[in-house]
């Protein structure tokens, strides 16, 4: 158990008993939830973590094969559920973690009471007539931009960090600058995320879910959110005023309010 806790940098806050598992998206870590945690800490046992390869997880535990698809990330989620003995969990997944949560819940539905999916997309690349919003060349463009930004400093700082295990502040600095500390891992996570196709997994979900759809979300466009809602049994669709792709960072109040409303409401049939 302690292995998983350390590996995924699991942190628990709150005085409630029912677990609320917060899963960050690609490019970030558990710090993303900083504006949300306080609002639910009285009523829930909030479990925060970093995927292996992100944030302050144990990079030594990174396995290129395991994390080459989203199933590997779903393994992380279930590992944590087992290690912490989580049941009736409220799972909140941002962006790619929406699909990770669905994969985990399809494998062990009893662990989860409800899923809250922020900006979900089962496939980012267009596949006519399905519109995901991107072409493959766009994803190449993202990988190139990531590479440029890593080459700017991480490539030079990275080796310094590795050679100075006694100077954790170097890692701290990297983590604070970008949530993914290793450019190779970040690239693989990007590929696992943006090249995935989980459309067939949606219909299998037996756990009720809430879809939080931002306005003008480039990453998960309106039509994709509606597609997810149409495909997921027992799902509730909630249009947000918030724009962009990270409402829990940019519009925490609205995000909290909609989450609370959903958690108070009876489960959709």
């Amino acid at each position, binding site marked *: 158990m302690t292995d998983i806790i350390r590996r995924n940098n699991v942190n628990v806050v709150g005085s409630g008993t029912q677990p609320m598992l917060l899963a960050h998206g690609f490019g970030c870590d558990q710090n993303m939830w900083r504006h949300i945690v306080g609002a639910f800490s009285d009523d829930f046992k909030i479990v925060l973590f970093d995927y292996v390869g992100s944030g302050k997880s144990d990079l030594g535990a990174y396995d290129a094969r395991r994390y080459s698809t989203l199933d590997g990330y779903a393994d992380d989620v279930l590992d944590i559920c087992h290690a912490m003995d989580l049941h009736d969990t409220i799972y909140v997944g941002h962006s790619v973690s929406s699909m990770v949560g669905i994969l985990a819940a399809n494998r062990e539905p009893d662990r989860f009471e409800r899923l809250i999916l922020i900006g979900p997309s089962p496939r980012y690349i267009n596949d006519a007539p399905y519109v995901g919003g991107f072409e493959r060349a766009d994803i190449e463009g993202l990988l190139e931009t990531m590479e440029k930004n890593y080459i700017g400093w991480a490539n030079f700082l990275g080796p310094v960090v590795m050679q100075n295990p006694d100077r954790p502040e170097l890692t701290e600095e990297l983590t604070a600058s970008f949530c993914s500390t290793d450019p190779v891992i970040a690239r693989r996570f990007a590929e696992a995320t*943006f090249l995935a196709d989980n459309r067939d997994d949606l219909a299998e979900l037996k756990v009720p879910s809430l879809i939080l759809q931002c306005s003008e979300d480039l990453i998960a466009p309106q039509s994709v959110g509606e597609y997810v809602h149409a495909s997921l049994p027992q799902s509730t669709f909630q249009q947000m005023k918030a724009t962009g792709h990270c409402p829990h960072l940019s519009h925490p109040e609205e995000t909290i309010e909609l989450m609370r409303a959903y958690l108070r409401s009876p489960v959709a049939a």
Partner: protein
Amino acid sequence: MDALIDQIPCGFVSFGDDGLIQHVNARLLDVLGYKREEVEGRHVETLMNVGSRIFFQTHLFPLIAMKGNAEEIFLLLKSSQGDEIGFLLNAARHVRDGKTVNDCALMRVQERRKFEDALVRAKKVAEAAQEELKETNDRYEEQAIELELQQEELLRQRQIADDANQAKSKFLAVMSHELRTPLNAIAGYVQLIEMGVHGPVTEDQLVALDRIHRSQLHLLRLINDVLNLARIEAGRVDYKIRSIALADVVATVMPMVEPQLAAKGVTSLALLDGAGLVRADREKLEQIVLNLLTNAAKFTQRGGTVTVRVRKDCGIPDRTCLDVEDTGIGIPEELQAGIFEPFVQVDTDNRKEGSGLGLAISRDLARGMGADLIVKSVPNKGSTFTVILPAD
């Protein structure tokens, strides 16, 4: 103030957490080719190419929102003409007029980008080369492991074969010994009956007893051959190597086969000019020569010749050759290689008396004392068996 910001030598853009652009300076509008009213109020993402937009949403915006600033971020912006222009961005988050705003300074990177692009390309080439090297390495390693496994298997098979051969030799040695005991008893009792110890014997019975005796001797010879071969193969033969005169060896052996040759009407010749000394086990060399002469006698028809010849200069340094040459039936070329294997006889249709072990034993004995035995033969013309001995 706005005029000052418009004139600074870098782009400036300010946006709220909703992503909408609140301010943009003239310099940035100029570089990108937009009018102010085309940009203000639009989402900041729309200034970027798609890759940079995703990066903005997944990395940059969370970074600014969480940390309050960002430095040296590379982004590709899109001009009104559709060109992609590289910028380095520094951002800081402020509260202005009660609202959170994100201010960004943008420095165009053109020359620097060329170097960076070259660096990225070089890195990719290096990574690909490294990957290829690794794959090649892995392949070689796999092959090496496979070879090692094959070698192990070969060694194992060889061990099995050696063990089986040893077991066979041991079995033959034991069995031959066990068979000789009752054969000796048969010979003994035949002699007693012949001598009339058990009562009078008729002429017919004597003829029958003689046949029994000859058959017993033949069987005993076969068994001795088998026993000898088994002993040689089991490495249980001692060689007493000494300096011996070849002429003496021939002189000892020839009289043993001369009656047989004479009875068959075969001429014998001994050409011993210059026969010198060799290093050999005399008894075993005599056994070899006797065996070769017996064979020659067996396979040579009436009117033929068997010649024993010693050649001091036989084309191999420090070696002396002893030929036993006949004018017999010869050995087909394809059978010559197998003639020294145990239980091989050339004339299988017309099987001659013998175990088929004589030549195998002879060659094993020759090799056991540092000599060798070879054959040259032309079918229907004759064969020459040559013992190659170390000269002394």
